[in-house]
């Protein structure tokens, strides 16, 4: 740890070959992020075999650059197509898409990329200087703390999500229930399979994401009959510079979202809740709260800053503890082992050139990335001019390819279609989809943390309260859960009028 290590890292990261890998990775990653069926995790997994013959540092630089590119690319589809390429760009659609519809696509994209960059830089600086300290804090986390953090995550959906809190809760529960389908890894028992072999594998969250967001979104948008039509993005140098001029106004949102992003991000599955929490907080604290969901630039800044900060922060536990902080980081962890490296704290000792090369490449990758996406956006905007009758089947086919590639299973394509219809119905009835997906991703982890905690305490729930860190987190989580119940009462007490419904969610 120290400046000389970082300088060593830069010596590795800015060799011509590694810089070339960065450029290729970001280009591929952005394309992968733009295609709704292929997310960062999938793209990294698909390209993993290509890296076997490379030196490990170049390989990780290529894969992480794909990851950064996918993070940037997710914003492009969210804003221009209203299709989140990744679950953590869902919140970006809330205001990004309305902005694009109003002809402010250029502003929205510039704000998104710049926010991503700011969030990323914040996380990278923190990783560089505070990695050892934070790793030690996280090392102390036992199952009760991990469960408390997940409890907090889901409580924020219920408490801060707006809309009907009961429906948010139902979405979370459906996600968790879907996650329990299949083999229980603790006891080896089959659950909810009813003797059907195909159900043993369970439901993969990638399929759910592709179906709920990809297919569901297409069904919803054809109904409106407006989407996919060529709204001009109006992206040029002047728009970029003008947007940069107004962005410093939102410095509070940048700072708050960066912190939320980093804090949520270094825990598994953090990017998605980080983007939602950041959006919810920005809405709560903004003077223009009523403009959220209708095309407010702050509503793009908040989730993008947090998502990218979280996406970078997800690398922290992977390199320091050997625990992936996101599905994409999990795939990279697999890569590390294949390249013959031992993930975990020993990396810093045994392979400093690898770790510090990686950390330095985060700086170079994101600096190159933000200029690349800004420059290439006119190319991506061209996608908007493709006729609707070509794009719809194309997206369906890409979604089908993405679904099939996960497990080489035709059944997954059928699941994708079913999830698509479910997503359409849920969206119309205002059941939020993101908590469902998140619960599906975190289901096993949450269940294991809960069970281990209960074993530690002999079945008493008190364990979530009488450990200091877990207790504090649980208390905040419980507060969020009862927030929807006390808010109307509080408003009456204060004598302020209660808004009938909080619009703008989903």
């Amino acid at each position, binding site marked *: 740890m120290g400046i000389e290590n970082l300088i060593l890292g830069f010596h590795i990261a800015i060799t011509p070959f590694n810089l070339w890998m960065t450029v290729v990775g970001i280009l591929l990653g952005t394309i992968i992020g733009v295609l709704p069926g292929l997310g960062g995790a999938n793209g990294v997994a698909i390209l993993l075999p290509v890296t076997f013959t490379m030196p490990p540092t170049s390989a990780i630089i290529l894969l992480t650059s794909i990851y950064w590119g996918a993070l940037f690319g997710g914003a492009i589809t969210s804003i221009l197509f209203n299709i989140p390429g990744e679950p953590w760009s869902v919140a970006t659609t809330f205001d990004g898409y309305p902005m694009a519809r109003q002809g402010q696509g250029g502003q929205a994209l510039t704000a998104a990329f710049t926010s991503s960059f700011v969030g990323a830089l914040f996380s990278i600086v923190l990783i560089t200087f505070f990695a050892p300290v934070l790793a030690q804090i996280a090392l102390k986390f036992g199952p009760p703390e991990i469960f408390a953090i997940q409890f907090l995550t889901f409580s924020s959906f219920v408490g801060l999500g707006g809309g009907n809190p009961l429906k948010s809760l139902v979405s979370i529960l459906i996600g968790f*229930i879907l996650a329990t389908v299949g083999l*229980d890894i603790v006891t080896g028992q089959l659950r909810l399979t009813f003797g059907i072999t195909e159900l043993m594998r369970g439901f993969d969250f990638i399929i759910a994401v592709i179906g709920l967001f990809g297919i569901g979104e297409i069904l919803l948008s054809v109904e*409106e009959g407006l989407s996919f039509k060529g709204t001009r993005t109006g992206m040029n140098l002047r728009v970029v510079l003008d947007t940069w001029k107004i962005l410093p106004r939102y410095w509070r949102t940048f700072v708050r979202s960066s912190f939320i992003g980093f804090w949520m991000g270094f825990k598994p599955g953090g990017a998605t809740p980080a983007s939602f929490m950041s959006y919810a907080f920005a809405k709560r604290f903004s003077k223009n709260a009523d403009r959220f969901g209708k095309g407010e630039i702050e509503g793009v800044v908040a989730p993008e800053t947090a998502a990218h900060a979280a996406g970078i922060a997800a690398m922290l536990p992977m390199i320091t503890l050997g625990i992936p902080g996101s599905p994409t980081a999990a795939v990279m962890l697999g890569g590390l082992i294949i390249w013959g490296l031992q993930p975990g704290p020993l990396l810093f000792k045994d392979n400093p050139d690898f770790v510090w090369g990686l950390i330095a490449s985060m700086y170079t990758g994101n600096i190159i990335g933000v200029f690349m996406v800004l420059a290439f956006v006119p190319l991506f905007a061209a996608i908007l001019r493709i006729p609707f009758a070509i794009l*719809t*089947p194309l997206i*369906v086919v890409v979604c089908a390819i993405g679904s099939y590639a996960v497990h080489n299973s035709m059944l997954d394509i059928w699941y994708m279609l079913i999830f698509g219809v479910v997503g359409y119905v849920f969206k119309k009835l205002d059941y939020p989809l993101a908590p469902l997906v998140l619960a599906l991703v975190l289901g096993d982890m949450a269940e294991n943390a*809960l069970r281990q905690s209960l*074993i530690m305490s002999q079945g008493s729930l008190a364990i979530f309260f009488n450990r200091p860190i877990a207790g504090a987190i649980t208390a905040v989580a419980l507060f969020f859960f009862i927030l929807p119940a006390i808010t109307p009462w509080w408003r009456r007490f204060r004598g302020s009028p209660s808004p009938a419904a909080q619009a703008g969610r989903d």
Partner: protein
Amino acid sequence: MRAAEFVTASILILLGGVVLFDAVRIGFGWGPDGPRSGFFPFWLALIMVVNCAVILAQSALGGRGKIFVSREQLGPVLKVLWPATAAVALMHFVGLYVASALYMGFYMRWVGRHSWVPVIVIALGLPIASFLIFEKWFLVPMPKGPLEQWLGY
């Protein structure tokens, strides 16, 4: 809207019941080494059933609200859904590439009313391009049918 709310909540209660049934079957209490397998699903399903019952009551008491889906809206939705379903069914027999060529061509011609030249160029070009990208470049195998077999893949 009310009917759709009602049906959705009812289906979810039904599913919750199925989960409860399975959780009770495998045991949801305290086993010799901690909570049994059914523990987590049991409580999830129980809370979900109670929640959906409340949503059901809310929708029954609430006003009629806006229409869930109008006839004009449902048309385009089904127009996307059924060809997609047919294409997926077709993949079982002719593989993903041929099915997507037929699907793209059909959709472009039928919905988009594009003229034959772009229909044929795109319906053939995109599957060929995705074949090269996924089979050749990314080495991700997709479902294949008799045509690919005949070509030696």
